[in-house]
């Protein structure tokens, strides 16, 4: 469905929303219609400080995929709330143009919820269309960021790092050095320690089992 009238109508409805319920409803409609051209407005919704609408907008942006990436990357870095949602959207889309933002979010964001989304996203990038050299470069970048985050202070981030390492490992050659480093990261996460809860240990062990066999 790419009818410009429909898009215009949905945009008008969203712009004129006068309560948070109306905004939520209008965002859901715009997010679920899959209309090309909806992305910039959905990105705008991320900054409205309305969590329900932001969740719907993130779903819509992920469904739009690549088209949503440029407006997401243009977000003002100072707009902290919107950026946190943008990290989730980029993590779900898996477009390699989001790499720098995801690496930065995992390494520096103060909110564990943003770091955990970034970690998942770094294991979820779509690399199949990249040239072999560039692919290795991106994989190395993801790997470094994820390994650094195996010592994150929050269990939920370390859990997401295990998930991210598993995702990254799926695309690596069985005998590669990179896969060996993925394994080392997962071994560290699967060590039982007082500060490392059983759920992280379990998830890291499961990830180890799912990696390509050497």
């Amino acid at each position, binding site marked *: 469905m790419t009818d410009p009238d429909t898009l215009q109508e949905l945009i008008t409805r969203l712009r004129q929303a006068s309560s948070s319920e109306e905004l939520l409803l209008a965002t859901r409609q715009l997010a679920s219609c899959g209309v090309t051209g909806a992305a910039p407005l959905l990105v705008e919704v991320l900054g409205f400080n309305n969590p329900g609408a932001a969740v719907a907008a993130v779903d819509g942006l992920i469904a739009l995929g690549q088209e949503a990436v440029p407006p997401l990357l243009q977000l003002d870095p100072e707009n902290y709330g919107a950026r946190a949602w943008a990290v989730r959207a980029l993590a779900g889309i898996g477009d390699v143009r989001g790499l720098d933002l995801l690496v930065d979010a995992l390494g520096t964001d103060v909110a*564990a919820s943003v770091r955990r989304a970034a*970690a998942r996203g770094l294991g979820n990038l779509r690399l199949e269309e990249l040239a072999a050299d560039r692919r290795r470069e991106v994989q190395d970048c993801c790997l470094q960021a994820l390994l*650094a985050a195996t010592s994150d*202070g929050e269990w*939920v981030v370390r859990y997401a790092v295990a998930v991210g390492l598993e995702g990254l490992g799926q695309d690596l050659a069985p005998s590669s050095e990179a896969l060996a480093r993925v394994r080392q990261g997962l071994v560290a*996460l699967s060590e039982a320690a007082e500060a*490392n809860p059983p759920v992280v240990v379990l998830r890291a062990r499961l990830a180890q089992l799912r990696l390509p066999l050497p």
Partner: protein
Amino acid sequence: MVGWLSMAAPQHEQAGAPISEAEALARLRQSDDPSQQYYAAWWLGRMRCQHPDAVPLLIEALRQRRPRDPGAGVEENAVARNAARALGKLGGPARQAIAELLKVLEDPDDGLREAAARALGELRAEQAVEPICRRLASGPDGAGAPQPGTPRLMEPCEALLEALGEIGCASGSTTHVLGVVEPYVHHERPLIRSAAARTLLRLSGDARWGDLLVALLDHPQLQVRRAALMDLGAAGWRPALEPIRRTLAENSLKLIALKGLVEHGCGEPGEEALLACMDALL
């Protein structure tokens, strides 16, 4: 790059406070400035300090409590409250504080009783079961009645109920404890009903109480849905997987609840299904 090698020593991550252990102990040892003690007590708990002086100093801070003077700034009771909370986090070595915490459980200050109840729960202090039951025995219309002019109840019921679930029961006393807790599933406040159901579920494993908590996941107030999530997690009630996934609340809280299902629960749905659901919420 810090990397995975540094994983073994995470104690100082996100310290929140640039003070050393020695400094924290010194601040707690002095008694001229209660606000310094207040912070130091919090710090020792947050860092799970294992220094041999920590527990004796925290017990000393507990003894600073006094009849309440709402006009005072950082009053001694605030120090005692933080000391109780810290003791709850220090595990085995803090068990020598149980006798003093049991005295605090009888303090006229209900905020202190609340902190003591939670600490006794965390320390799995079986000696506390009887005194806690005595505090709750008058039921929702007694211990659970509102304190006139405040949002608080006569007793810190939520903390008392949850502590009973944490401690568990020596065989033989379960029926008695269940009898004390059960009337609270009819309390007018949903958060108290949730706390009671959590404890009954942990102590009895009876599906009725799991169903009660699952029903609270549909409550119109977000605060109640959040509490039900935490309570299902604490009880490890795995049949709640799908309702947890669907309820309207932050993914962060759903993840904490599901962690509880993985770590404290058993049976179906199994771990792989639980972990798959967690993955999708990240």
